[in-house]
């Protein structure tokens, strides 16, 4: 990095990628992969998302790992971030649920209220 301006340029470019500005109908799947998430089974869930997204030929979806969101009791947590910034947080995501999220939320656009953090029953 030669100067602050170089960094600013890189920042603006990286921000476009992070905000999915150039991706039509972009959706970002964030899988919580801290130690807590991995211990709760986030690895196979992440793999499942990769497989499902590939199987359905979805080109507008970015899958990424992130750190712990703080709600360790509800791991594995998966956040679906849409282009407009809407975030849906699913908790205790299993491989089966991953499949359902891809089919219902990503393809059909219906959020699965029953698995969302805000509606989970204790």
């Amino acid at each position, binding site marked *: *990095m030669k*100067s602050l301006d170089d960094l600013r340029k890189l*920042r603006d470019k990286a921000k476009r990628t992070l905000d999915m500005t150039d991706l039509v109908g972009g959706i970002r799947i964030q899988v919580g992969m*801290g130690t807590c998430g991995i211990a709760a089974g986030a690895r196979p869930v992440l793999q499942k998302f990769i497989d499902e997204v590939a199987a359905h030929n979805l080109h507008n979806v970015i899958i990424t790992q992130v750190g712990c*969101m703080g709600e360790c009791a509800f791991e594995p947590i998966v956040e679906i971030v849409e282009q407009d910034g809407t975030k849906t947080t699913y908790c205790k995501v299993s491989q089966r649920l991953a499949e359902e999220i891809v089919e219902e939320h990503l393809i059909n656009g219906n959020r699965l209220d029953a698995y969302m953090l*805000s509606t989970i029953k204790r």
Partner: protein
Amino acid sequence: MLSRMHILICGGKECLSSHSKELRDEFNRVLNELNLLDEVRLVMAGCFGLCNQGPIVVMTPGETFYSHVTVEDIREICEEHVVKGNIVSRLLIKDPIDKKKIKNYSQLKFYDRQRRIALRNCGQINPADINEYIARDGYLALGKVLSSMTPASVVAEMKKSGLRGRGGAGFSTGQKWEFATRSVDDVKYVICNADEGDPGAFMDRSVLEGDPHSVLEAMAICGYAIGSHQGYIYVRAEYPIAVERLNNAIKQARELHLLGNNIFSSGFGFEIELRLGAGAFVCGEETALMASIEGNRGMPRLKPPFPAVKGLWGHPTNVNNVETFANVPAIFLKGADWFKAIGTEKSSGTKVFALGGKIANTGLVEIPMGTTLREVIFDIGGGIPNRRKFKAVQTGGPSGGCITEKALDTPIDFDSLVAMGSMMGSGGMIVMDEDNCMVDVARFYLDFTVDESCGKCTPCREGTRRMLDILNKICAGNGTLEDLDLLESIANMVKDSSLCALGQTAPNPVLSTLTHFRDEYIAHVVDKVCPAGVCPNLTNYTITDKCIGCTKCALNCPVSAISGTVKQKHVIDLTKCIRCGACKKACPVNAITSKPLPKEENR
């Protein structure tokens, strides 16, 4: 095209049933009529958690919440709020933090009361990709510091921010940097203390795993301020994911020349290396940590000389905790005044706590200093599960003490916790309910410190061992009242005469439980009973009249010691009972208690 305003309509289930779809159609119609559809964007958003106030409409920017919005209100919202910018006050929510109304949505409050500075990127960006960190203004603080500030002004800014060390003792970070600056030497070191060892604390791990670059950036800033070109991160090998992501982060930062020689063409160079610790608790103590980096046995030494004068390999060294570093880039991006405005007067900023134990929402919370324990435990943490009663909260791990219900409304900061006989520690917060025996809790922590004592000084090595012996004796039912006095005097002696903070703070769990729960100790030594039903030798389970005869206890008893008929009070045969506590856990009405036996039956 960018919209100047977003209208978020709650698309949650409850609000849909209160006709939020019709609202959207009406908004569309009216906005179209006013020719505003290009400027304003309608979004069907997720549930806002205020369902009995629904349908909810939120206008951003400004975050104006309108409740009970009807189709008839929409024209007014569009004409007044959207066109003229006047808030339609009759539709505003009157009391959004009314506990009664949103208590079922504590999940939303989990984030509501928090303020994320150290954890700002955790769970938001991919820790393995430096570009995502840069996209969220990463390394901009370092760039700003290197291109427009002198080392002295960096230290001054740190001092002004009032940031205090998040590792436990709460020493002013700016002052620490200043001491290291004053020491004259060609070689100086910056160390990040990531040897997080308290049972139940995982704040540092989360930062390293979720946002490793924030620590690297802060270390480089610190290096520039104190005149150091080499940093070490001392992280325990038990954190393999953190180690992997840190190594990857260092590699990526080097590739982009954000570490290495001549960063931002400023002439300043900085390198960072990892040093793995084998997981000894004492290595969290800075002098022991440095001994361990040097390749020696991790043992503390006397201070002074402080590390800022004579540290790693005899050179001036600045040691800061992970969370302290994680705050630094944010301070330089937004300014010391911004940081100072958060928190309390003497403890600025936020603190991350790892909530654990008997609490509904186990996890990490970051709250502004000055939040009360009650808010943390009951509002953010969701309270105690299984309808048990709150008993105490242990902060600061094996170095801290218990805080009782009386002190729950005290605002948390470094000084108030010390005043309560506990300490901030690194931020572990273990919640205990009526099923926890406080003598057993003290024994647990002491067992930990006995294991972790390095053995260099006698008070810690021998004193903690003798204290543990006494606690074991009490838990086994052989304790006497004299033992309590002896325990207290040894505890004070260890506290006063140990070499390092490990020994000096090891008696805290004992002393604080002795102060706040002396009646439990007395129950153990005089009545020979453990009121919580934890210590097996002192537990005599009885079923009280609260019993509803559900038979769950009898079904769960592994030795069939419980008899009774359905819908009638059950009875425990204490000669068969093995004190496993399965019945107590199974009881839905909390009818099983541990009570003293009549004298002659004492075991």
